[in-house]
């Protein structure tokens, strides 16, 4: 077991001498733990020398301290200094607490600091600014300079904070089921390297998730150079294979289409849920919403884009549509073909008219609309559609002159195989063939999320091979692994990641790894011979090789500060022209449709299952169904009526040779014969939160039909699973809660939403104005633009993270006790169950000027501030709950049980120190982020000025991808919220009650095609397009 030459050439990195110093100075500790170090195991004599060098090195750093009695102390202290200097992070010795001798200049207790880093989901980087209090990160915000964030984030990125502190994360290296050490793993890795170098990597496979990290990709490519027979597979359950393959069919190259919604007047989505799924979704949502924001100044000249959506299952994108057509996933390709034909695309073939029967008028209007918007329209296809549809969409876009205008093509941002599913299939075949003797899984969890026909779990169990797994959790794959190494969360590690447009962000750690986690880069570095190279050095080394050396330090520091690093390779990723798309490679199979089809979707909150142990995301209602804590088989009302299914009833889904039991959720807007199941549930080794929640839809998913397929049979059973939905009633009961109109209506009557306000009784009141003195400087208010809100629910999670809102669990949600301070209400409009209009309404506290909650509290626990905040004094609350009863908006939340008292210690640092943690028996609710207002007030006071009208940003406002929420000072006429209140679309919820809410809304507008046929045209069909 001799280490290679490279090992000796690499200078020992600082953590090494640290450990050496610690061990040398505490022999009993060392003896007990068997003194683990790579060098000791290698046992070549250099180890002791290294130790003594390290110790003397540390000592040498501290001159004149030979006094033996102080040696131990100073050694440890030296180690701390060394750590603080290098990575700024490592596990501190448990026994000693050493106060600051010199206080670091930047760290002020009570003052938050923000660091730029980036989150990554499915290889898609989103730039972040992370709030850190005294060295512990507490809240994630978007990074305004990062193009994929623009200052916003989504629910998944927000919830990463909880994952970081998750006590169920893997905490220790596991070797053959026993706890082990990183050092011994390194020894193993060095040995593996030696063996694999000898046979050129034969039988060695690496499986990653989508890798968009330039540094890691570079490492892996270098590794493959040294081991030419090794192979790199990458697999993502929610893969973008089809898009890349579609471009390959059309252009001969695997390209990523990048839509530009800012330039598109007419958008056609073919099963594309671009607002919640896919790279750059936050950016796209923003660009899309910007085109739906009517001009406040002159309603008559307002323009909006128009969105047509064809989809099998309702999504938030479909909810934003001006015209939505529920269509089985298998028929979406027919729709694309019909469209191509109508647009006279070269090479287009006839669609099967039967499959689109009843919708001819719909398609002809759509085609006419597209024709009228050449170069300003956009046809976008979802990841769930086959490559052929993507190719056809390229042809349609090309025919409409959209390519280069509203859609550009770029090389994939991900490195590694472009056909991920194919790559996984290949890996599985090779494993079965016995050609793999070592498999390194970096971050992925293929045992859980690979297609069921690959039988990967069985193969991994059966074949004699070494399985190494790096993962955040001791998950399904880790259970089979010979070695499992805990992965460092991105908030505790160095790295880099590309965004959808190729922008690279550097990930920097906010905290020392809580559980001694490691990055993929560190493992690959070891295999490259750079044993123990810390992840920071890996990233720095890569970028120092790519950026001009003379300005590197400056650029690097700038990049860390801004969160975006200038990439000289960006030109490669820049959009190029790739010639005309060709359809000669596209073939269609015209198999007749069978009865039912199954549709797979990533879960809106758990994604592919990686967030299953995240309580925030488990409890976050999935916007369309409002389902929490579990998944369901979504069936259409028509199918439910046909089969006699009821909500919560368990059905057996049989598809090919697999059978899965799933509870039914009847979903209006679902295509009649499609049954949608969400991936990501039914985990067995997710952790205490995620185990056994929902059913595992991967058990039905096959590699040849990853997204949808015919041949599903549904058999009802007598079982029942209570599904925890947060909304039980779905229409507005003829109340003007979400006010909406069409663009035309708006142009004619801009204040169509203010009918109630025009009534002569409006705002008349027998009550005097609030008796509290009114501030002359500030009147806080919020305005929510329902036309921009896409219902993504990010605000709910952001609020939860900011305000220490507890997770209450399924039983409590079943009894309507969820604690979210801001919720997104979802209502269906129109009587058509098959295709209802869907509208969203985020509801935080209204901070009523005449708040019904205030006058009924017997102990003055809820009061009005002079700035208009409806304040909640937790300490004073005795819990009569009268305020909650009397709140017309039902935004008050009660601590029915001690939800926070059993918080595990590791979750306590997660709490925002600026916000009280509430005890049992007290009421709580949205505070307009009063802690942020106060912080701004202090800042302003110190600077001797007033708080700016838009200076305070609430958590929900900050996270909102579409900027639907504005908050600020109503007394400042220039503030965004004052301007929003001038909008003719402005209205107050339940204004007739005279509560005078400070949170108000702006009506939603749709932009239906005036030429669209009226709904009666296809009345004979049960599935009708939605108009308006």
């Amino acid at each position, binding site marked *: 077991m001799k280490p290679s030459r490279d090992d000796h050439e690499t200078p020992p990195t600082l953590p090494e001498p640290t450990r050496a110093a610690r061990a040398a100075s505490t022999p009993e500790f060392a003896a007990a733990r068997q003194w683990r170090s790579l060098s000791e195991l290698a046992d070549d004599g250099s180890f002791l020398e290294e130790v003594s060098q390290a110790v003397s090195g540390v000592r040498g750093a501290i001159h004149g301290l030979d006094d033996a009695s102080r040696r131990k102390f100073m050694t440890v202290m030296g180690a701390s200094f060394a750590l603080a200097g290098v990575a700024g992070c490592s596990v501190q010795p448990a026994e000693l607490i050493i106060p600051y001798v010199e206080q670091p200049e930047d760290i002020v207790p009570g003052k938050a600091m923000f660091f730029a880093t980036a989150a990554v989901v499915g290889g898609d980087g989103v730039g972040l600014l992370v709030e850190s209090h005294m060295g512990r990160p507490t809240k994630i915000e978007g990074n305004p300079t990062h193009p994929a964030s623009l200052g916003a984030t989504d629910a998944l990125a927000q919830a990463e904070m909880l994952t970081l502190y998750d006590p169920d994360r893997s905490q220790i290296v596991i070797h053959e089921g026993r706890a082990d050490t990183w050092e011994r793993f390194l020894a193993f890795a060095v040995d593996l390297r030696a063996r694999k170098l000898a046979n050129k990597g034969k039988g060695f496979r690496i499986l990653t998730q989508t890798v968009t990290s330039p540094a890691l990709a570079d490492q892996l490519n270098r590794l493959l150079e040294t081991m030419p027979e090794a192979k790199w597979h990458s697999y993502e359950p929610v893969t973008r294979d089809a898009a890349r393959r579609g471009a390959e069919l059309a252009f001969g190259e695997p390209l990523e289409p990048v839509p530009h919604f800012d330039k598109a007047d007419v958008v056609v989505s073919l099963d594309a849920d671009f607002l919640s799924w896919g790279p750059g979704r936050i950016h796209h949502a923003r660009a899309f919403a910007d085109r739906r924001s009517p001009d406040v100044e002159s309603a008559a000249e307002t323009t909006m884009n128009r969105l047509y959506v064809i989809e099998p299952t309702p999504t938030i994108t479909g909810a934003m549509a001006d015209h939505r057509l529920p269509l089985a996933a298998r028929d979406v390709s027919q729709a694309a073909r019909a469209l191509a034909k109508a647009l006279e695309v070269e090479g287009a073939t006839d669609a099967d008219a039967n499959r689109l029967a009843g919708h001819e008028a719909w398609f002809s209007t759509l085609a006419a609309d597209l024709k009228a918007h050449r170069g300003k329209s956009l046809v976008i296809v979802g990841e769930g559609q086959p490559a052929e549809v993507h190719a056809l969409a390229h042809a349609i876009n090309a025919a409409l002159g959209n390519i280069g205008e509203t859609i550009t093509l770029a090389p994939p941002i991900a490195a590694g195989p472009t056909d991920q599913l194919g790559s996984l299939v290949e890996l599985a075949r090779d494993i079965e063939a016995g050609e793999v003797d070592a498999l390194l899984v970096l971050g992925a969890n293929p045992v859980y999320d690979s297609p069921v026909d690959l039988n990967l779990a069985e193969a991994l169990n059966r074949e004699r091979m070494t399985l190494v797994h790096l993962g955040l959790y001791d998950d399904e794959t880790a259970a089979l692994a010979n070695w499992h190494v805990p992965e460092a969360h991105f908030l505790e590690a160095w790295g880099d990641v590309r965004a959808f447009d190729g922008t690279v962000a550097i990930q920097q750690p906010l905290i020392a790894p809580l559980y001694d986690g490691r990055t993929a880069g560190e493992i690959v570095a070891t295999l490259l011979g750079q044993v123990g190279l810390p992840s920071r050095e890996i990233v720095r080394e890569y970028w120092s090789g790519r950026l001009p050396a003379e300005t590197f330090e400056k650029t690097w520091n700038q990049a860390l500060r801004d969160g975006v690093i200038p990439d000289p390779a960006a030109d490669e990723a820049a959009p190029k022209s790739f010639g005309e798309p060709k359809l000669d490679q596209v073939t269609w199979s015209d198999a007749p449709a069978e009865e039912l089809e199954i549709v797979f979707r990533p879960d809106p909150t758990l994604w592919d299952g990686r967030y299953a142990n995240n309580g925030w995301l488990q409890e976050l209602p999935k916007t369309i169904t409002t389902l929490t804590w579990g998944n369901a088989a979504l069936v259409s009302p028509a199918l439910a009526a046909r089969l006699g299914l009821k909500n919560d009833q368990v059905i057996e889904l049989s598809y090919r040779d697999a059978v899965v039991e799933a509870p039914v959720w009847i979903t209006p807007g679902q295509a009649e014969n499609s049954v949608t199941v969400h991936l990501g549930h039914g985990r067995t080794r997710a952790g205490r939160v995620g185990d056994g929640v929902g059913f595992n839809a991967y058990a039905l998913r096959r590699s040849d039909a990853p997204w949808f397929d015919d041949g599903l049979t549904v058999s009802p059973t007598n079982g029942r699973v209570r599904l925890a939905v947060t909304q039980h009633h779905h229409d507005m009961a003829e109340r003007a809660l979400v006010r909406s109109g069409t663009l035309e209506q708006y142009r004619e009557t801009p204040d169509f939403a203010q009918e109630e306000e025009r009534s002569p009784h409006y705002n008349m009141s027998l009550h005097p104005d609030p008796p509290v003195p009114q501030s002359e400087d500030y009147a806080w208010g919020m305005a929510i633009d329902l036309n921009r809100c896409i219902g993504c629910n990010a605000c709910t999670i952001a609020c939860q993270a900011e305000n220490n809102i507890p997770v209450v669990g399924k039983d409590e949600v079943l009894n309507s006790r969820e604690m979210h301070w801001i919720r997104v209400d979802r209502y269906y409009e129109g009587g058509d169950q098959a295709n209802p209009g869907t509208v969203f309404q985020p*509801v935080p506290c209204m901070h009523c000027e005449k708040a019904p909650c205030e*006058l009924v509290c017997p102990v003055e626990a809820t009061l009005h501030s002079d700035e208009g905040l409806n304040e909640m004094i937790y300490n004073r609350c*005795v819990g009569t709950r009268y305020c909650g009863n009397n709140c017309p908006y039902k935004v008050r939340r009660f601590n029915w049980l001690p939800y926070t008292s059993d918080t595990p210690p590791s979750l306590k640092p997660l709490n925002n120190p600026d916000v009280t943690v509430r005890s049992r028996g007290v009421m709580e609710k949205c505070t307009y982020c009063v802690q942020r207002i106060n912080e701004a007030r202090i800042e302003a006071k110190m600077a001797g000025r007033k708080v700016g009208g838009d200076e305070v940003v609430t958590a929900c406002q900050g996270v909102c991808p579409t900027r639907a929420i504005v908050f600020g000072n109503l007394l400042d006429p220039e503030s965004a919220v004052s301007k929003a209140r001038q909008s003719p679309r402005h209205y107050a919820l339940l204004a007739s009650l005279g509560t005078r809410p400070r949170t108000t809304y702006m009506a939603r507008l749709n932009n239906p095609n005036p030429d669209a046929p009226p709904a009666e045209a296809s009345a004979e069909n049960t599935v009708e397009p939605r108009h308006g």
Partner: protein
Amino acid sequence: MAELKHKEDRRPGPPPVLAPGHTFGSVTSKISSLVLTDPYDWRWAIGMGIGSSLLLLFAVAVVQLLLRGIGIWGVNVPVMWGLAIINFVWWIGIGHAGTLISAILLLLKQEWRTSINRFAEAMTLFAVACAGVFPLLHMGRPWKFYWLLPYPNTMALLPQWRSPLVWDVFAVSTYASVSVMFWYVGLIPDLATLRDRAISRPAQLIYGSLALGWRGSARHWARYKSAYMLLAALATPLVVSVHTVVSFDFAASVIPGWHTTIFPPYFVAGAIFSGFAMVVTLCVPLRAAYGLHDFITDRHLDNMAKILLVTGSIVGYGYAMEFFIAWYSANPYEGFLFLEARPFGWYANAYRTMIFCNVLIPQLFWFPACRRNVMLLWICSLIVNVGMWLERYVIVITSTSQDFLPSSWAMYYPTFWDWATFLGTIGLFLFLMFLFIRFLPVIAIAEMRELVHETDHHAARERGLPAGEPHGEAR
């Protein structure tokens, strides 16, 4: 009057309020023997057993509640008040009959009240005790209950006077203390009687000290009479005010179904309705078990049935008026609640049962035969008790479960602990009631003696001066 006399001649008159032939001695010995000399009764033991078992359940439920929190009940976000508040209003309502009987009927010189007032007052007291625990227990942090009281404190805070809950605190605590005073003052002469007739030394000592040195002198009687009348005058407004204030808990809110000006009179009528139902429920078995037919005659039952009919009809009018206003006001939220949600919605069964129990059942009492059928009357009184509980259930639950924003609508399901607490207070009530039956005179001895005197006296006067009868048919 002559005409009345004429009528009386044609058909049998109402039964007397006291069976003929009783003397001061027979009244005293009959009533005091229940406490002092009657042997141990197995029926009492069974009743006490049920009461104390339920009381134990109550203790368990309360300990659970204090340890774990209000979340062990079924209350949730739209329905933040559940069984606790329903029970509170129900118990408080039951108490009202006692006060009405003892105070208002006393002032109106309704002599038939005499034989039922003592245990009706006891019922009031125990019902208020049961009611009182609910607002305390239903708080999120019950150990902070005293923050609702105006007391000098370092926080320099008084309660929030605009909140009906603070009014409630005053209304209910005033009601409880006046009821205790009234009951106790009325008991003093009887305690002295028991002291004098007691054989065992401990009984003499206990009754003696409770009797506060009552010797029955003319001065005692004079003071006693004026104090009792003053207390009655004090208690009289409480009959109206307490339930009015309780109704403000709902009426002062903005919730459709709660925000209603008809609530105060409608609640008071409902309270008297349910209270008399409870008096009937209690006095029928009591009369049978202790052979008190001479004192609690069919006349009493007949009168109480008439009150049930009147108050039940007022309650029915209240329901009808809610409907009418919901339609007439064109308020969409009220319209939805009264015209859709209550009669046809999630809780339609509760609502329809309530109408049946509270409006239809009392209509039987138009018929004298029904009023005098003791068994039927007793069953009807039970039905009315259930109906009035359901009324509070309908008011509290349906209104909040479907208020303004349909997105928040949700149903309420009481849990085991909800029911355990409710049954527990029934246990507390039974426990106290059975203690009372065993250790205190269930009928006011002194007042009965007065009644004997007056009956004889007036009988004598009637013979001589038939036209001088001052009380007319009411006697």
